[in-house]
C-alpha cells in the first residue's frame, strides 16, 4: 500500500519535471549545449580556447583566445595590450615566449599579469627568426613576436599552418606581419591619467581599442579599457 503510493507520487513528480522541461526547453537546451562543450573530446583543437582576462573578453568573438589563431595588435600601447592578452593564458599555467624585443620592460610584463616564472625571452638573429618561431609554436602556448624587420609571405603562411596544427596562439605587435590576423586589435587612442603639471605620477591609461579580423571576428568591436590600470594590471573602466 505504502509502496504504490510512493510510486504514484514518484510518477507524478516525474510528470511534473517533464512538463517543466517542456516549458523551459530553451534554457535546458542551452544548458545541454554547455555540458556538451565541457565534455567535448580534446581532439578538436579548433574549438579549444585559452582564457583571457575578464576586462578584455569583449574583444574576442569567442570570449577567449582560440587555439591556433593569430592576434595582431597595432598602435601606441600595443606592447602593454599584447602582454595583457597573454596574461590570461599565463595565469592559468601556460608558458609565454617573447621573440625579438630587446628593450622589453620586465616589471611591466609582470604587473600586467604574465607569470614571469613561465616566460621565455628569445632573441634570435634576423636570419633565425622563422627557426625560433617554428620551434616555439607548439611548445609554448602563447608566442609574442615583435619583429623589427618584415616577415616574408611564405614564412608567415607556413607559420599560420603550423599554428593551426599545433594549437598555439601567436600575438604579433606592429604591422610587419604580411598575412591578415584572425583577430586584429587596433589602438585608436590612449589617454594617460594621474600626471599633472609638475605633480602626480602615472597611474593608468585608458585605451580605445577597435577590434576586427576574419570570420566571426570580422564584426567590428570597440572597447575602452585601462591598460595598465592602477597598480599595473588591466582594469575595466569604472562605470
Amino acid at each position, binding site marked *: 500500500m505504502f509502496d504504490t503510493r510512493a510510486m504514484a507520487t514518484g510518477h507524478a513528480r516525474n510528470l511534473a519535471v517533464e512538463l517543466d522541461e517542456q516549458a523551459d526547453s530553451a534554457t535546458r537546451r542551452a544548458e545541454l549545449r554547455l555540458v556538451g562543450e565541457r565534455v567535448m573530446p580534446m581532439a578538436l583543437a579548433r574549438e579549444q580556447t585559452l582564457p583571457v582576462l575578464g576586462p578584455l573578453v569583449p574583444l574576442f568573438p569567442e570570449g577567449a583566445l582560440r587555439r591556433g589563431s593569430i592576434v595582431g595588435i597595432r598602435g*601606441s*600601447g*600595443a*606592447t*602593454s595590450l599584447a*602582454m595583457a592578452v597573454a596574461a590570461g593564458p599565463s595565469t592559468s*599555467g*601556460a*608558458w609565454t*615566449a617573447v621573440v625579438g624585443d*630587446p*628593450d*622589453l*620592460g*620586465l*616589471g*611591466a*610584463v*609582470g*604587473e600586467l599579469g604574465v*607569470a*614571469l*616564472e*613561465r*616566460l*621565455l*625571452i*628569445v*632573441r*634570435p*638573429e634576423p636570419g*633565425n627568426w622563422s*627557426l*625560433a618561431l617554428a*620551434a*616555439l609554436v*607548439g*611548445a*609554448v*602556448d602563447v608566442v609574442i613576436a615583435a619583429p623589427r624587420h618584415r616577415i616574408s609571405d611564405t614564412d608567415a603562411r607556413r607559420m599560420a599552418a603550423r599554428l593551426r596544427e599545433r594549437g598555439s596562439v601567436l600575438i604579433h605587435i606592429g604591422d610587419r606581419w604580411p598575412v591578415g590576423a584572425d583577430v586584429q586589435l587596433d589602438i585608436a*587612442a*590612449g*589617454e*594617460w591619467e594621474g*600626471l*599633472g*603639471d*609638475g*605633480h*602626480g*605620477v*602615472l*597611474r*593608468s*591609461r585608458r585605451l580605445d581599442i577597435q577590434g576586427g579580423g576574419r570570420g566571426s571576428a570580422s564584426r567590428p568591436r570597440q572597447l575602452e579599457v585601462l591598460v*595598465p590600470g592602477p*597598480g*599595473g594590471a588591466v582594469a575595466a573602466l569604472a562605470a
Partner: protein
Amino acid sequence: MSAPVRTLVAWCPDWPVVATGVDLAEPVAVVYANRIVAASPGARAQGVARGMRRRAAQGRCATLALHERDEAREARLFEPVVAALDDITPRVEVIRPGTCALVMRGPSRYFGGDAAVADLVHERLAEIVAERTDVRVGVADGPFAAELAARAANPTRLVPSGEVAGFLAPMKVDVLERPELVDVLRRLGVRTLGAFADLPASDVLARFGSDGLGAHRLACGRDERPPDARRPPVDWTVSDEIDPPADRVDRVAFLARTLADELHRRLGRDGVTCVRVGIEAETEHGEQLLRFWRHEGTLSDAAVADRVRWQLDGWLNGSAASRPSGGITRLALIPDELIAAKGRQLGFWGGETEVDQRAIRVAARLQGQLGADAVLVPEREGGRHPDSQLRLVPAATVELTGRSLDPEPDTAPWPGVLPAPSPTRVLTEPISIEVLDECNRAVVVTGRGLLSASPFVLAARGKRIEVRHWAGPWPIDERWWDPEAHTRQARLQVVTVDGRAHLIALAGGAWAITAQWD
C-alpha cells in the same frame, strides 16, 4: 616477508669536487643551476653548504673557487674506481658517479663474511682514490640502508642483518630525499625515520600515495617495492650494431639516444620499468664490457642516454690498461630487475607538468641552435631602476621548474622606486634629448633637487615635441661611497602631446629618455 638483498655501498665523499681535480683543503664548490651541489671540506669549514645559492656561498667565503658541474667528467673519472671492484664481483652497479653498490651474497660467501668483503673493497678503492678523497663502505639490507651506513661509516660500517630498522630509526626523515614529503612529515611532527615507520602503512598509502608508501617501506628497513616474482616473459634488451667500429664517443652518442628512446618505449608499452640498466659494449676483438647503472624508473630517456655516453667515455678514454683494444661494434641496453611501472604522479599544483616540460625542452633546443645568450628568463633582484628589479639571465643557468618570482612578502620596497605601472620599454641605449622651457632655455636641476623651470618641449635630432603633463624630479644618489660607480640622477615622468609617456633622466648634465610606456 623477505628481507631486502644484502648490499654493500661504497661512497667517495665530495666526488663532484674531487672530479674537478683540485686540492680538497682549498675552498672549492661545484655549482649547477646556480646552486651549490657539492663543496670541499675546506669550503664547508667556512659555512658553504649544499643547496646554497652561488652568491650566498660567495658571501660566506670570499675566496671560494666555483666550478660548473660536469657530470660526464665525474662519470669518466669514476670508471677506474668501479673497475677495481670487477674481480670481486662482476655485478658492480653505479648508483651515481661517486657511489657504487654490489650485492653481497656471492662475494660474502667467497671471501668469508661481510666484514672481509667490506675491508677488501675499502682497501682496493682507497688505493685508487688515495690522496684525492677517502672511501666509506657500508653494508646493510637493501641499497637505501647500505648507502646511509656508508655515510655513517668510518671507514666501514656493518649493519647486521635484521637490525636495519633499528639503525634507521634515529635518522632524520630528510634522508628520504623526497623534499615535498619530508616537508609535510616535518610539519606533522614526524621527524625521524623511526617515527615515520611507526605510522600504519595503509594510512601512509591513503595520505601520500604509492611514492609515500615506497618511502615508508624504506623507513621500515624493507625494499622500496615488494619483490616481483613474475619471470619476465620477454627480453627487453635493445641493441644495435655499429659499422664501422666506433672508437670515439661522439660517434656512439647518437646511437645511445636512439637506443634509450627505444628501451623506454618498449618498457612503457608493457607497463614495466627497471631497477637498473646495464650498458653493454662489444669491441671488434670480441671484448665485452658491461656496467650497471641505477635507474629505479626515475630516469628519463635523455638521462639514460647521458649515462651511456658517460660510460663509453669512461671506457674509451680510461687508462691504457683498461681501455678496450678495438673499436666498439655493438651497443646494448639491458634492463635489469623489472618492476611494475607505477607512473610518477605529477603535481596538481606546482611541480613539473607536461606543459612545463615542453617549454623547458624547447628552451634547451633553442639554446643549442641560437646560442645560450639568445634564450633568456627573468630573475628577480633589487634595484631602483626599471631595468634592475628584474634581470634577464640565460635559461641554461637556472632551474626552470618550480621557480617563483613573486617578490618575497616581507621584503621592504627599495626606496626611490617609482610606483607601478612600470615602463614596458626600458631602453638599452637611452635616447639623448634636450629639455627646454617656454623660452627655449635648457631645463636643469638645481643642487637642491628642483627644476629650474617647467619643461615645455623635448627636442631630439631636430624634432621637437611638446610636453603635455609632467611630474618630478625624483632624485637618486646611488653608490656615493664608490667614486667609480657613483651616479646621481633626477628622473621625470613626461606625457607628450601625442599621448606617449616617457621616463626621462638627467645625469651628468645631459638629459636622456631611459624608458617608455608603450
